[in-house]
């Protein structure tokens, strides 16, 4: 069974032969897809309050974001990064707990769905305002530098939608000014909610911005797992080695709505025929079969394993207590004697 990664121990990705690394990444993608399909069905069945936001079509880029980070590194995922979160070390039971509102989840029912993280373990808890996580990641890296730590890196995810915010611009510029070891992975999934690229930006290629900020930049086909692994691994290595901050721009199509409430009827047929509209998980599986990296029985056992893990995580979270408003600690600051108007 593929267990949730233990950071620090999962050097397999770093040292593994290309096939092994590809297969490990594939299994995280498969787990992510399986988990998110389950979340969608729970949502459709009315068992999840609020929204469900999935990363279908973006798993290859996302998994590469989580896979090459080590213990002590900082990861700032966004809403379509389940594969990367799992590869980085987030237990999927915490995903189920957050979506289902368990008191035992990292957010304890106080925040939901993809707004989750464990900052003490290096996984930042995103806020909804896009672009805001970049400068926060810069700050965590500066703290590490102040503390005299070495050999660390931060990776902050963004989409082409978030790249148009002022906050993102400020964060990217400041990262370069501070020369922190940062990688920004920007996934252009061609829609900011319903708005297509031509109403989002007017530059020829988003990666051209790298030069303007003092980053090193790379463009990749986000549907191709091997490319995602090679380029993002290289960017992480370069940042860790003290090169300027790195920008990777991946091209994909979001194979879902913005959230599960959205039928994405605005995505045109022409868009769906583009090369970047292919499903990265299917392409990866085809490559496994074509190159005989694993046989059908093995692939089937992995699918079953993923389904079993997901079922267990959901069942665990469903059994756990929801937060209780009567017992809730309604206190927004940690310094209790400074609470205004204590209850």
């Amino acid at each position: 069974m593929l267990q949730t990664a233990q950071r620090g121990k999962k050097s397999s990705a770093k040292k593994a032969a290309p096939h092994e690394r590809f297969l490990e990444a594939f299994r995280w993608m498969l787990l992510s897809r399986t988990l998110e399909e389950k979340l969608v069905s729970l949502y459709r069945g009315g068992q999840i309050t609020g929204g469900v936001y999935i990363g279908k079509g973006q798993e290859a880029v996302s998994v590469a974001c989580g896979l090459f980070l080590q213990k002590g590194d900082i990861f700032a995922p966004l809403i379509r990064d389940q594969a990367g979160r799992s590869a980085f070390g987030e237990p999927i039971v915490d995903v189920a707990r957050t979506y289902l509102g368990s008191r035992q989840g990292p957010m304890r029912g106080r925040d939901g769905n993809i707004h989750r993280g464990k900052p003490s373990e290096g996984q930042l808890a995103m806020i909804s305002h896009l672009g805001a996580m970049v400068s926060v990641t810069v700050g965590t890296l500066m703290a590490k530098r102040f503390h005299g730590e070495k050999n660390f890196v931060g990776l902050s995810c963004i989409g082409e939608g978030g790249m148009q915010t002022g906050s993102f611009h400020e964060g990217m510029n400041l990262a370069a000014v501070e020369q922190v070891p940062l990688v920004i992975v920007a996934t252009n999934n061609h829609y900011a909610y319903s708005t297509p690229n031509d109403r989002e930006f007017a530059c020829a290629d988003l990666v051209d911005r790298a030069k303007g900020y003092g980053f090193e930049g790379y463009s990749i086909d986000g549907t191709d797992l091997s490319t995602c692994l090679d380029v993002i691994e290289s960017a992480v290595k370069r940042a860790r080695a003290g090169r300027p901050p790195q920008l990777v721009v991946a091209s994909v199509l979001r194979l879902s709505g913005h959230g599960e409430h959205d039928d994405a009827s605005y995505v045109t047929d022409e868009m769906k025929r583009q090369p970047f509209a292919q499903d990265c998980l299917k392409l990866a599986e085809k490559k496994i079969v074509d190159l005989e990296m694993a046989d059908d029985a093995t692939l089937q056992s992995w699918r079953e394993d993923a389904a079993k893990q997901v079922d267990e995580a959901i069942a665990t979270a469903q059994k756990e207590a929801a937060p209780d408003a009567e017992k809730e600690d309604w206190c927004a600051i940690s310094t209790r004697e400074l609470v205004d108007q204590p209850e």
Partner: protein
Amino acid sequence: MSITYLEAIREAQAKLLRDDERVFIYGQDVGGTFGGAFKATKGLAKEFPNRVLNTPISEDAIVGTAIGAAMRGMRPIVEMQFADFSSTALNQILNHAGTHYWRTNIPVPITIRLPSGGTKGSGPFHSQSMESVYAHYPGLIVMTPATVEDAYTMLIDAVAIDDPVVYCEHKYLYYHLKANKLPDKGLPTGRARIARQGRDLTIVTYSAMVQESLAVAEELARENFEIEVVDLRTVKPLDTDTVLASVARTGRLLCVGESFPWGGATAEVIARVTSEGFHLLDAAPVRINAKDTPIPYHPNLWSAHRPGAKMIAAKARALLKE
């Protein structure tokens, strides 16, 4: 020897940098030989070149960076060049710093210094008082020191607090206000101070309006009125107990604040006193704020826009007759 309010802020930061390696100062023009638009960090970069750092003009990213550093054990002090400019960092302050402990159980101990309030000729964008905006949101402590001594000890306290603190320092007091020496310790955070004792009327105020109100109390003393002045020190938490105890002594309440009139710290004080101490009041409470327009440039307009001793005295006399 005499030390100004501004020098007290600088001395507090010097002490913090010396005593605590987790402290760093981050903001526009704070470093190098310049030492900040108001010189509140003058000379500090020379002693601590790696911990007093200039930034680009990027308020959002400055606060975001401070939040990230605070999450990982640092104690950043952010200097906003003017309180007004913190509007472009509102998202990081309110939605990130203010929510982080509640969401994740990890507090972010950042201190954001806001050079606040009006001075002549500064106009709409270099004169604002933002305390009511920050006090409205959960998760933040909001300090408004009114004396040299408090400017010093409260800034040291702000950095020691594990939660985000918005420290509103008043530019009008920077050079006017002087003390002979700096204390080692002040009142506990969140405790209001009786700046002057009286029995006829309570003025509850904070920041630069404490000095205006004390001048009014002095003036009315010549008319045989004893005015009590309560300096809130922090508007959040708000020391309702001290305010109610004062109103219990005087029966009359006048609240004075320099920020805009809709809602805010003065409205909060009156809401609490009328709700919790209605029986203590001998007359309807009164509040004074700035006018509900942007802050004007010309001194003739500015001095009428801002509550001053003359306006406070007039309202106090009227309230004393009620």
